[in-house]
């Protein structure tokens, strides 16, 4: 299936951090109702996304001077966590939209900022056509951009394009002959752009993280930004991309733990426990205690990561950006760990009946396993250790 252009629902403009959190809680309660059904039927959340972006949450990082709320990254992480606890596919979809907003802030001209931030405040959603499944590694791009006098032409093939199917504008990464990365903002109606709904992963099933082909796509030069500058110089862009990943995984953990407690309350007592109810089992109770402190530890580090990003945005230099990368990496390790642990312990503490298909509780584990693969936690331990032991600052790219 390929999808056509999206309709636009005019967005509310959120004014402050507290409002963003309140709106997220309200939306999450609604998104939670059919999250399991959407996963089971792989029903793409078209109406939910309209509601999500119309709520104003997709514009909260637009700086105050451009009419947005310019909320802190502590708030951004909290919002993504709250939505992901209800439906982690919905929590993941704005991931690249938010990343692109920061790249715009760091590298676009004044005119471009006014134009695109304005669009976002109106309710426009950015998708992404960044990753390529056939290039040498995650940071290598084969998609090419060629500049003419008034236009640029982009050719290539993309995968893991979360959000592109639902987007009004698809930002695509392409490199020039010097291998410098640019982002072209491609309108959904552009004849060279094809978005393919080919995502059939076992988790994060309704993210539509499928493919994009770019076949002689032409855009005006005003629709191109020099994205490489966000990494040539120290900026918080890498940590910003990463904290959203960590927030999704933290949300999955929070959602799985809530579900665990709900089902553990109803579990049968084990024959040797001598208890009348499953919830009286001392080992189950202690296992819940273990999950609780680990979730809270992860949330506390996620908050520290947000604060480190805010500090790096205020004063970007080698040290503040390195510090933000390191703290975000800690959040990334912890959130991956607890998302997988909580979504697996769920079954142990709820008992065999919890694996019945009608409950669809495996979606939490499938989502945790899928989303935590975004970039490997094993290299985050290394990043953190190398900074501590050897004083080596993390490499600057979208995965640190």
């Amino acid at each position, binding site marked *: 299936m390929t999808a056509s252009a999206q309709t636009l629902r005019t967005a509310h403009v959120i004014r402050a951090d507290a409002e963003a959190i309140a709106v997220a809680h309200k939306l999450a309660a609604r998104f939670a109702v059919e999250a399991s059904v959407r996963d089971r039927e792989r029903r793409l959340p078209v109406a939910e996304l309209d509601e999500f972006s119309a709520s104003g949450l997709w514009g909260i990082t637009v700086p105050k001077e451009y009419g947005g709320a310019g909320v802190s990254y502590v708030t951004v992480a909290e919002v993504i966590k709250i939505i992901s606890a209800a439906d982690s596919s919905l929590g993941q979809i704005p991931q690249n939209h938010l990343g692109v907003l920061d790249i715009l802030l760091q590298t676009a001209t004044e005119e471009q900022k006014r134009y695109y931030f304005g669009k976002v405040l109106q309710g426009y959603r950015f998708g992404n056509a960044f990753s390529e499944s056939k290039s040498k590694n995650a940071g290598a791009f084969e998609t090419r951009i060629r500049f003419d006098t008034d236009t640029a032409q982009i050719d290539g093939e993309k995968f893991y394009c979360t959000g592109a199917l639902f987007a009004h504008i698809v930002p695509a990464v392409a490199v020039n002959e010097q291998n410098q990365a640019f982002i072209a903002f491609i309108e959904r109606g552009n004849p060279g752009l094809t978005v393919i709904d080919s995502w059939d992963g076992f988790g994060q099933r309704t993210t539509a993280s499928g493919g994009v082909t770019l076949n002689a796509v032409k855009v005006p030069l005003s629709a191109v930004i020099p994205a490489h500058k966000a990494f040539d110089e120290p900026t918080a862009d890498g940590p910003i991309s990463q904290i959203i990943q960590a927030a999704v995984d933290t949300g999955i953990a929070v959602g799985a733990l809530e579900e665990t407690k709900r089902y553990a*309350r109803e579990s049968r007592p084990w024959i040797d426990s001598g208890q009348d109810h499953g919830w009286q089992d001392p080992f189950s109770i*202690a296992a819940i205690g273990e999950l609780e402190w680990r979730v809270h530890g992860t949330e506390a580090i996620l908050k520290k990561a947000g604060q480190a990003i805010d500090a790096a945005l205020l004063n970007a230099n080698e040290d503040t950006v390195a510090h933000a990368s390191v703290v975000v990496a800690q959040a990334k390790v912890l959130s991956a760990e607890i998302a997988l642990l909580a979504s697996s312990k769920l079954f142990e503490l709820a008992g065999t009946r919890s694996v019945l298909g009608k409950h669809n509780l495996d979606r939490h584990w499938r989502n945790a396993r899928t989303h935590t693969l975004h970039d490997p936690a094993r290299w985050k*331990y290394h990043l953190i250790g190398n900074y501590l032991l050897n004083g080596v600052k993390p490499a600057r790219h979208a995965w640190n």
Partner: protein
Amino acid sequence: MNALTQPIVAGQPLAKSQHDLHNARSLLDATLRFVRQQSKTTDDPFVISRFGDVHIRIEVAAALLERAQEFLNRHEDDSEISVAIAESHLASAQALSTVSDAEFELTGQRTVLQGSLHDPLRWKLHLIGNFRLNGIRPVKFE
């Protein structure tokens, strides 16, 4: 005797966390110093990652200690304070045992740590779980 069996000092509910966290940091510093003297090991990817793991556990302990302190200062609900304190104890104890294991692995020696059998951590897990799962309030912290 180990970090899992240390007592709370009455009237200073976070003293045990502070104590464990302080010890964890000292052990980490000593281990870092030792390893930096061995030129080959500072390039070993597994040694580097091991420090990453230890550092994460220490930062979690510090963050949960700070959180419990905030709960105390804000005069949160007594049960919430008790649970936050218990979570801080668990995190600090885990940080300390993680760094102690890393010290043994990377230096071949283990610094002796004092503990006690009073107020064991295994019942902190139970206290937290019983409140969150069953709504049973813990006895007030001292």
